[in-house]
């Protein structure tokens, strides 16, 4: 029982960290292409903004999950986090069209980074739900 608790807590902390990395990273680390010379933005900027909003939602949810002590509330938050993270996976180039060449920053850096981190969030949430259930059963 103690081990399950530790793993669940660990996955919850990982969820907070990944959500913060997604939110801050999409703005500062693996952001989309820059502004055009005329000051306007390329299509990929919309994808960046969307992922940023989803990142904020995931961060808020993961922090609330840490604050709440009731197992049922925690589980529901984790369940909601999975489709939210999966939505972020599909934002770059599927839901929102990106730039012309694969070598451009939005396609070569932002897209893979967003996909990997979002998938990790969904996986961590699923693992956390599993350990939460195991904990409850024991």
């Amino acid at each position: 029982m103690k081990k399950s608790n530790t793993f669940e807590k660990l996955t919850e902390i990982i969820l907070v960290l990944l959500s913060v990395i997604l939110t801050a990273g999409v703005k500062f680390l693996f952001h989309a292409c820059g502004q055009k010379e005329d000051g306007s933005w390329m299509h990929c900027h919309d994808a960046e903004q969307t992922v940023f909003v989803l990142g904020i939602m995931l961060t808020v949810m993961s922090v609330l999950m840490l604050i709440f002590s009731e197992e049922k509330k925690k589980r529901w938050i984790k369940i909601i986090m999975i489709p939210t993270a999966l939505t972020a996976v599909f934002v770059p180039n599927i839901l929102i069209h990106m730039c012309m060449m694969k070598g451009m920053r939005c396609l070569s850096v932002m897209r893979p980074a967003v996909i990997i981190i979002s998938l990790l969030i969904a996986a961590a949430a699923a693992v956390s739900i599993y350990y939460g259930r195991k904990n409850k059963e024991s």
Partner: protein
Amino acid sequence: MSIFKSLPFRNIAGKPVRSFVLVLLTALLSLTVMGGSLIVSSLRKGLDSLEARLGADVMVVPYEQATKTKIEDIVLQGSTGYFYMDKTFMDKVAEREGIGEISPQFYLASASSSCCSIPVQIIGFDPETDFTISPWIKRSYGKELGKLDVVVGNDLNAFVGDTLTFYGQECHVAAKLDKTGTSYDTTVFANADTIKALIQSSLDLKMNNFSDIDPDKVVSCILINAGEGYSADEVVNDINLHVKKVKAIKTKEMITGISDSLSGVSEVIGILIAAVWILGVVILLLAFTMSVNERKKEFAVLRVMGASRRKLAAIVLQEALITGIIGGIAGVLLGLLIVLPFNSVIEETLKLPFLLPGAGGIAVYSAAALIAAAAAGAAASGISAFRISRIDTGLILRGEN
């Protein structure tokens, strides 16, 4: 007996920090082998693809372009640009001796497309005479290209059925090429009619520097394959001697620079892998030696409990092998997670042709990296395993060693 069997696993689980450090070290070893070999093989595959993609022995360009680096930038680096020469040069060159196949190409750089601020290189070819681009296009598109039909390179974010607008002309994407790892991946291909229509549109919109050209009477370059019994050098010399205002270039010479850069990058990667491995193996060696020294009493007790000298050595080796395999798998996964999704960034950074191996090749590199990391861990623990099999139980338990 069963307790001895499960002992290596229990030892690993019982000392999480030590095990984590060992796993981390072996992961680093397999990551360097995996990442390094994957990058080097992708560069080699890219160069092979580039050689195949050039497809012609000789390239004839306007003389003033040959003195600039522009032509190599367009052909090899994927930079955008355009230049033209009178079509009559095509006939003059075709009359020379030693010409096997000959076909013109037309270059045009698009203005920034509507979605983003990156221009695209457009290459036009004559389907009747072309022998360089058509074989690649036929792999993806079996039919003839119509007017305003285009074939896009693999790295362009456009798909069959999409519409791309260049100089106000809407072009239909008829096919998408397979990945070549070269500048072809960022190029749009069209037949001569489409290119002429686009050149005319660019002139009408005053977006082309060549205001006095007639699209029907120009070509950008002429590609030649030497005829039977003639070498590329002979053809190059003959054209350069007898046809004025053009320059013939041997295409093989164009990729010499890339080949040299690739050798340099491969060498640097090789040195880095060797450095990480030497350091990693030395640290593993020290870690196992220190760990076994700390655990001398533990092994002496096991010896008293009936474990043979061979069993003690096997426990140390098994522990190293288990941590090696776990670390190896972690390193391989991390390597795949870095190289596969971010291969475009690596390609952009190295500015060299880059073509990832197929799934089979990647599986072979993964297996090799995993085996190398596990073997390195086992080899590093070998000395410690040998020493522990020679311990004097009595001396150790009395605290004299």
